[in-house]
């Protein structure tokens, strides 16, 4: 059992979400708590699409971030490392980057196959994307704007451990 955009629109209406419908997509707009889009406003634009005869639902934020035009290999590499680290840490949503233009996209794929899409399932997945956008925005922004690399917890543990040993050695 697959789904259709009409069914998704009905589920969003039932969940009292504001959305606009186009031929092949549904757009959902959200005012975020922490995330800022590349225009530096607090809104996020989420796209919901149905693919492969409705057996795959894609929920994503196009151009969640944009590497500035003219950035060098170093910046691309730093952002890729950051995305890799985030994708390792989180479940559900994932980040991906288009090498050609530096567009960073956040989203998730929901393979329905023969399952029926429910409101709870749809909302859970939408919230997963939105929460990820908010939670990781600060670290992402630092990597993108200030070239501060993102570190995993185990690497930080070593640094902090060494600092405290040095600081409190009698």
């Amino acid at each position, binding site marked *: 059992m697959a789904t259709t955009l009409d069914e998704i629109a009905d589920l969003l209406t039932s969940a009292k979400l504001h959305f606009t419908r186009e031929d092949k997509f549904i757009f959902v707009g959200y005012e975020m708590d922490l995330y800022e889009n590349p225009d530096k406003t607090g809104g996020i634009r989420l796209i919901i699409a149905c693919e492969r005869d409705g057996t795959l639902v894609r929920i994503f934020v196009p151009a969640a971030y944009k590497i500035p035009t003219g950035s060098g290999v170093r910046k691309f590499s730093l952002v890729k490392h950051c995305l890799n680290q985030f994708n390792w840490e989180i479940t559900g949503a994932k980040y991906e980057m288009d090498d050609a233009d530096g567009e960073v996209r956040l989203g998730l794929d929901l393979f329905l196959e023969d399952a029926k899409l429910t409101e709870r399932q749809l909302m859970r997945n939408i919230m997963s994307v939105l929460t990820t956008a908010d939670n990781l925005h600060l670290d992402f922004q*630092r990597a993108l704007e200030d070239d501060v690399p993102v570190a995993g917890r185990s690497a930080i543990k070593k640094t902090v451990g060494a600092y*405290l040993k040095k600081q409190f050695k009698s």
Partner: protein
Amino acid sequence: MSKPSPDKQRSEFAEIISQGKKYLFDEQMERARAEFSQAQSFAEAHFGINSEEVDLAHDELINLLHILELKDDELALLESLVAKRRQHEPQNVPSLVSALMRLAKCQVDLEQFDAAEAHFKEAIASCSLHNSEHLFSLQLSHVDYGRCLCRHNQSERAVEVLEDGLKLYARIKDGNVMMAADMAMYMALAYWNLGREAEAVELGTQVAPLTCHRSAGPNADFTRMLYHVGGYYHQEKKYKEADYYLQWALTRLFQESSIKHRNIGAVYHLLASNDRLFGKPERVERHLRRALKFLLRGCEAHEPMVMDTRLGLINVLIPAERYAEAETVIAEAIEAIKNLERNLESKQNLYYNNLGFVQVHLEKFPKAEASLRFALKVAQDDQERAYPLKNLGLLYQRMGYVTEAIDYYRQALLLFETEPGEPHPMIPVIQKALTELQNPA
């Protein structure tokens, strides 16, 4: 009759616990309590007083008593556990320390601080630095004792205990980094409470990447430290650093299980002040509006921080000439202070003057006149009289009443000119208006 095998006993124990949890889920609390009590007796009889099973049964029972808010029962249970461990297996230090710590924490909740402190001290004294099996318990005792002292405003002693704990960490080979980082963060908080702000920020910023890492669960104390660091950098005019730590504090606040509206509002409020100085004017209004939204959910509408946020918003909207929106915010502010007894006149003067000013621009002239005359009526001194007079001049100028406009502008000019200090910025504005009125094109 043969003795049941240990596996069979474990499975029977697990079944009792599972039945208790089922009752708990169904909110049949008395039945759940009976099952967990039975599990405890069963574990003590078959696995020994220091077994993991006893700990598990105790945990379930204590959690249940905690939910039921039966603090005295919880305390009695923990006291009996400690007594049993002291009597039967005093040599099993980690197990004894674990019971002592739980008892101490329960006593802290019951505000029996002296008794709690005695148990924290006993836990630390029970451990030997030379026994590797004790080191984890020793570190844990320092963290919990230090946290308790820190939360109870015993900051000087908290610093001593936490410093001991951190020195211990520095001495031993395989110390627990997470616990050491927690100790350092609590020590930073204790420094902050003692007014040793620079030391607090130095230590806090070094360990926050670990204690407040995005993959770690939020801790309200540590989030508060991030907020302090943000505030400190804001005061030090290091706006970029302030922005980072304040946003970090917000990220952590939103991750907490219960939303603390007041705290979130306070962070947004400070962030807005920082944005203004950091050169991010586009964010000021967004952050002020969010601050107001969260503060109104967590505070009274007339509280100083709420009023200050409204004033900040008014000061964004009026220069942007968004008078209709400003009028709404001012009207809300006036409504909020309507029934206040203290400082009423001064606040009324400020808001009615602002209201009159925006109403002039919205060409609501009769309302503007009433607002400005009221602001004048409640003015306490010349400074508070000067602005409504200037705005009455503006009102009559807009209405085309030249004589009245000149009269009010002159009265306002006199008051602004007699203010001590640097010449008031309103003086050239009024002089220009007077020139226009006296020499019409």
